């Protein structure tokens, strides 16, 4: 079952939550909606589920090519897992999962035996069988999230929508559940869309990532594309783990602090102020610079975590910070001292003219 969002606009009072958003999720895909808070990602998910509605005339939602924009949530058959789970606090785990089956009209409602069997299967799937008679208050956060997933799956949804599925969990449980969800997706192949503000989560889990910013989609692509070829300074900035240099674009290359670097393609208008992004692992540090394209910097600090070494430098010209990542062996070979001056070289630079969308 595919999901199609076509030109959806949504306002809350004067605030535009979604501005002409279009997105297509193919059958069986696992797609992440990634963005900072207030970017409209949850609103988009709620509109897809039928929990919110676009402005009148403000776009359409299609499930498998069929327009469901005016279909109420209760008839869309979308499985939705809420950020704070929204478990029915007065019902046991079993009854929470059974709810969607029990509220069906009499004609399509399974009998008690079928309900028991189905719920039993699902609780097995989420590994909560022994806790069936507990109340939500007696569960841990990770268990609650799994109940909420089982509950969403019980109605045999056509698509699965997850709002910050791991947002309220601690780091370890989050990693476990992430792996479990990927496994689940491989098993049942349900079209799944999840919202997150955690770029690592999105890049690790999703087959495609859509990045939202202020109600617009900034970039859609595979995790590799998003990470390797961010489409805008915002995406670079949001994914983090990047050095930002201010400079000027001159004849297809970029000048940073008096030094010219080969930009390898410039996005935006030529001959203007520029933003250059360099990932910490795309920086080479040497004692004595070879050729023109090096910046001098002073070593401020370095430390090693496992096989990776982090190096903090301070540029000599404008005293801004540069963060570098290299292997432990490389750091040992350099045998640096704090305070020492080194030369910085860029393996790969991505340059945007400053007037380009920020």
């Amino acid at each position, binding site marked *: 079952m595919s999901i199609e969002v076509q030109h959806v606009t949504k306002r809350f009072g004067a605030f535009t939550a979604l501005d002409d958003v279009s997105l297509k999720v193919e059958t069986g895909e696992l797609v992440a909606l990634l963005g900072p808070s207030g970017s409209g990602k949850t609103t988009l998910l709620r509109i897809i*589920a039928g929990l919110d509605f676009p402005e009148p005339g403000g776009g359409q939602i299609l499930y498998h090519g069929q327009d469901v924009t005016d279909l109420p949530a*209760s008839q*869309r058959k979308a499985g939705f897992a809420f950020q704070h789970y929204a478990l029915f606090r007065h019902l046991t785990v079993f009854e929470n999962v059974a709810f969607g089956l029990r*509220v069906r009209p009499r004609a399509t409602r399974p009998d008690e035996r079928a309900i028991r069997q189905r719920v039993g299967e699902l609780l097995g799937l989420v590994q909560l069988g022994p806790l069936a008679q507990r109340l939500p208050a007696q569960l841990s*956060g990770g268990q609650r999230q799994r109940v909420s997933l089982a509950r969403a799956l019980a*109605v045999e949804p056509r698509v699965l929508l997850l709002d910050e599925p791991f947002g309220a969990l601690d780091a370890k449980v989050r990693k476990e559940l992430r792996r479990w969800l990927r496994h689940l997706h491989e098993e049942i192949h349900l079209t799944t869309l999840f919202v997150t503000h955690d770029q690592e989560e999105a890049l690790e889990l999703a087959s495609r990532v859509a990045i939202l910013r202020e109600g617009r989609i900034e970039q859609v692509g595979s995790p590799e594309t998003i990470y390797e070829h961010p489409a805008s300074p915002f995406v670079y900035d949001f994914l983090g783990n990047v050095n930002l240099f201010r400079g000027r674009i001159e004849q297809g290359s970029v000048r940073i602090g008096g030094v010219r670097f080969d930009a390898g393609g410039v996005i935006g208008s030529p001959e203007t102020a520029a933003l250059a992004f360099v990932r910490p692992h795309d920086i080479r540090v040497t004692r004595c610079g070879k050729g023109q394209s090096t910046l001098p910097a002073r070593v401020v600090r370095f430390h090693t975590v496992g096989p990776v070494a982090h190096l903090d430098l301070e540029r000599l010209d404008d005293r801004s910070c540069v963060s570098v990542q290299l292997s432990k062996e490389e750091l040992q070979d350099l045998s640096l001292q704090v305070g020492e001056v080194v030369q910085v070289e860029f393996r790969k630079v991505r340059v945007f003219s400053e007037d380009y969308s920020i």
Partner: protein
Amino acid sequence: MNPTPRLSRTEGGSRRRATHDPRWMRALLVGAAFLFLGLFLFVPLASVFAHALAKGIGPYLETFQDPVTLSAIRLTLIAAAVAVPLNTLFGVCAAWAIAKFDFRGKQVLLTLIDLPFSVSPVISGLIYVLLFGAQGWLGPWLAERDLQIIFAIPGILLATLFVTFPFVARELIPLMQAQGRMEEEAAMVLGASGWKTWWRVTLPNIKWGLLYGIILCNARAMGEFGAVSVVSGHIRGQTNTLPLHVEILYNEYNAVAAFAVASLLTLLAVLTLALKSWVEGKQAASLAAASAATSP
């Protein structure tokens, strides 16, 4: 001479947490509270029963064989039977609209719902006299059609409705606002209709608050004096509720009968308090469970 300086401990030298008061102060304050509450609450309560039974159980029970008393009991029950369901229905509707939806003018509506609480009971009766009484706006119209509201049962019901108007609503609104609409949304996504969502999700979550509001509403409906007094006309055996009957008996210097009827109302009050504190316990437990369920 002792060369080592000693830190002097204040207030008796006992080790105390900073939030704990010394024993004498605790005793003093608890004593004061007991004295005040005893004098103002317990003694009046006890005196009602003492005076009711002053001449023994016989005269006490006799009061309840008087047909006038029985008709007062009946009218009081009717008033509560009308006011409680109607105001409960209103309270539920108002709370659903206010707590689950966003709309303009919500704050004004909240204030208007509370209005009857800030109006003197006497005025609560008066407004219906001014509307439906012989001199009122609709008086002539009603007289033409031979309909009587004031000094008749409909007036009593209206006055009771007015004074008990906010009870259920003001209990449910903050409760439902605090619960948000997440669980209802979850139910809708799982395919439940509006009705099923209400019966299976919302109602179980608010049942204690609802019961609490109903208990208070009922107590006031049965006990209201001022407002009902204005519209009743005090016709014995016809438009007399229990509290009005207490007044009549008392003014006739029939102390035993007055206190006997009063003791019935006092029992109602004590029962109300007992139920109320039981429901509060239940509600606290379910709130604790709820906050445990939503916090990670």
